[in-house]
């Protein structure tokens, strides 16, 4: 009997807790879907599902950007504004400057990367709390975007460019494809490259990482640059999709990205989680938003509900951590 008990214990311990964590996230998603399918007949239609995934694509890209930062136990509150200003930059260049699309896009991406670089400097070198640093940059970026647009909205981009956001590739909307590419690339970066290893090490234990010879400052700066870059990419795709560049683009997108990351199982304490979790989280957020519409919940209540979700997600996350004896503060 003892042998059996021991074996069971061994097996139980061997199941990677990280796997359990990921599974539980998917479980939430599945349960939500099941629940929704009961509540609304429209939910499980292929049209609705495609709709959910398409709408969730661009926020998913943003959530990936946030994931990388959160993996290092920091946060990036500026991705919404970087999202906006990248779109604005590209839009202005396309429309106002008549600059060829590739260069305009590059400029937008460069803008995102530069702002990310500033974030990185502020947090890693000057050691400003990430909240203050990225919030400040967020304001600055938002202001810059406002200043450039001067209240106008740019619209009407060349068709070739619009294809990025609006077109279909073998029947699949470009937004989904691009999101898929970003997801794949970032997954690759985080799990299969030395840089990814350093990111996880930094998040898991910054001091141990440093004492293992990792250039923690450099990695952190790069992480923010990457986050800015990806957020900018999302912004460019967005303006292609809706054929307009407007300063308010990113303001409502910040909170859902944090929620998506947390729901997806990436720990705010760093070192745990990843891209796939965020995908699950982004899908979950997409379903929630879709549910709110299908159930006729007024848009006005959405921010409130989102806030509730963040809190509930973090609480649940903390509870799970405490139960499995993992690190919590």
């Amino acid at each position, binding site marked *: 009997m003892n042998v059996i008990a021991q074996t069971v214990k061994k097996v139980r311990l061997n199941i990677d807790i990280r796997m359990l964590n990921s599974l539980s996230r998917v479980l939430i998603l599945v349960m939500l879907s099941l629940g929704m399918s009961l509540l609304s007949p429209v939910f499980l239609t292929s049209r609705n599902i495609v709709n959910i995934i398409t709408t969730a694509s661009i926020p998913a890209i943003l959530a990936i950007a946030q994931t990388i930062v959160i993996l290092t136990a920091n946060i990036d509150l500026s991705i919404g504004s970087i999202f906006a200003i990248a779109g604005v930059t590209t839009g202005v260049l396309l429309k106002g400057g008549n600059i060829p699309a590739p260069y305009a896009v590059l400029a937008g991406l460069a803008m995102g990367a530069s702002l990310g670089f500033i974030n990185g400097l502020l947090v890693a070198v000057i050691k400003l709390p990430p909240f203050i640093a990225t919030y400040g940059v967020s304001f600055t970026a938002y202001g810059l975007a406002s200043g450039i647009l001067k209240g106008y909205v740019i619209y009407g981009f060349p068709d070739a460019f619009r294809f990025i956001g609006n077109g279909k590739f073998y029947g699949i909307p470009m937004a989904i494809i691009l999101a898929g590419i970003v997801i794949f690339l970032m997954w690759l970066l985080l799990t299969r490259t030395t840089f990814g*290893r350093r990111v996880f090490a930094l998040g*898991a234990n910054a001091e141990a990482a*440093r004492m293992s*010879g990792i*250039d923690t400052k450099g990695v952190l700066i790069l992480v923010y640059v990457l986050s800015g870059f990806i957020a900018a990419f999302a912004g460019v795709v967005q303006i292609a999709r809706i054929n307009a560049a407007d300063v308010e683009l990113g303001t409502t997108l910040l909170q859902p990205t944090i929620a998506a990351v947390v729901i997806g199982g990436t720990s705010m304490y760093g070192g745990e989680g990843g891209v796939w979790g965020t995908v699950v989280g982004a899908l979950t957020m997409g379903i929630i938003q879709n549910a709110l519409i299908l159930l006729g919940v007024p848009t006005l209540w959405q921010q409130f509900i989102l806030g509730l979700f963040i809190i509930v997600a973090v609480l649940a996350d903390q509870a799970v951590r405490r139960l499995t004896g993992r690190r919590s503060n």
Partner: protein
Amino acid sequence: MSDALLLRAEGICKQFPGVQALDEVNFDLRAGEVHVLLGENGAGKSTLMKILAGAYQPDSGKIFMNGNEIAFHTPRQAQLAGIAIIYQEFNLVPYMNVAQNIFLGRFPKRYGLFLDHKKMQADAKKLLKSLYLDLDTTAFTFSLGTGQQQMVEVAKALSVESRVLIMDEPTASLTETEIEHLFMIIRELKKRGIGVIYISHRLQEVHEIGDRVTVLRDGKLIGTKDVKDVEIPDLVKMMVGRNVDKMFERTYQPRGEEALRVENLGCGKKLKDVCMTLHCGEIVGLAGLVGAGRTELAHAIFGVDPVDSGKVFVFGKEVYPSSPAQMVQAGVSLLPEDRKNQGLCLILPTSENMVMASLKKLFPKFMVNNRKEKTVVMDYIQDLRIATPSPKRIVQFLSGGTQQKVVLAKWLCTEAKIFIFDEPTRGIDVGAKAEIHGFMNELVKNGAAVLMISSELPEVLGMSDRIYVMREGQIIKELSCEEATQEKIIGFAMGGDSAQRDTSPVFGKEVTHA
């Protein structure tokens, strides 16, 4: 000093995972006496004090205060019973003034709500005056010197009408004048019938301020004596006299080229003008008391903390220790004292921890090759006999000894030539200890250079070719493995007899053991 017993502890036992911290220890304190508690690092002094102060609970044994049996479950209870403890790390609030720190939680109030600043200041001043102190009670504590902060802590302890005062290494960071002052205060306290338990590593203080002295060793009570009946050599003998029955597997090598040289390294108050060398093929032990600066030296060499002055040479080339990354590149490695917080990323798998320091070396093309990683990791798991069910096991769940092996594997992977081990076998079971010693031996056999910081004297004596003894941030003495004895090391570490630095080199002798 009366014979009235303030405090009596009987048969105290306390066990921590893997180690018996206290084993049937008896201790008592009379009113108006200073009872000095001596022992090496890890002898159990701190554990005993924490039990008396209510921070730990004993596994068995009884404690009596003024004849009544008591049991403390929280530090607060001990405080209320009149036992105050002053830890080495001060518990003062930096941006609050002295008076407020003293009366924190017991502020005098007017009308039950408003702080009576005038009374607080006056009371504080009175309290300090009774301790022969004239501090500016309106000053923020962060602006005070360590000695003054110490005094504030004493005042704070006294403000609660303690009958028992436990002081953990109170003179560790004090100047001579401040120490004199402290002693003056202690003598005053004695007159008031307060009993003081005094933990110190400075043997000369035993006769300066103590009435009785108790020596602990390996968690056991060795003896309690009146201070007038013992001399320092007796005390040292009591502290270290153990049977060296552990075998240390060492095959001594001829000394190779100079691997590491440190010249005049200085870092604030913690390191002063440190000079040392390390050669291939040798294990150099670094002994000294906690706080002597050994870990600080290791951190300075490895680039963890910035240095103010001095130079570091690796294989003859000067390298400025700007960051650990820099030193890893130069071929240096550090297995830190704080294994869990500095040596490992606990929530990551074993394999990731192992390759963490050699990412560039193993995977020069940026992409992690899983197969290669697995091969490398499995090799180390086998070679080092790392007890883990799978290479993906999260290190948090490994035993202490296994964790240390993972750290070792990490550095072996970097193909470093210089290894700094900081307390390599602390908290590790005997079997794993021997294994790690074996690995260290292998390392130097293959031409590496090892610097071993250890507080376990048998380990230092058994493993080292040469021994440096540090005290108060300096290297006080260098001993060869033949001339070194436990008594000598402790003597130098505590400054019992020789207070001067002896820098005569030991190089003359070629070590030719088999």
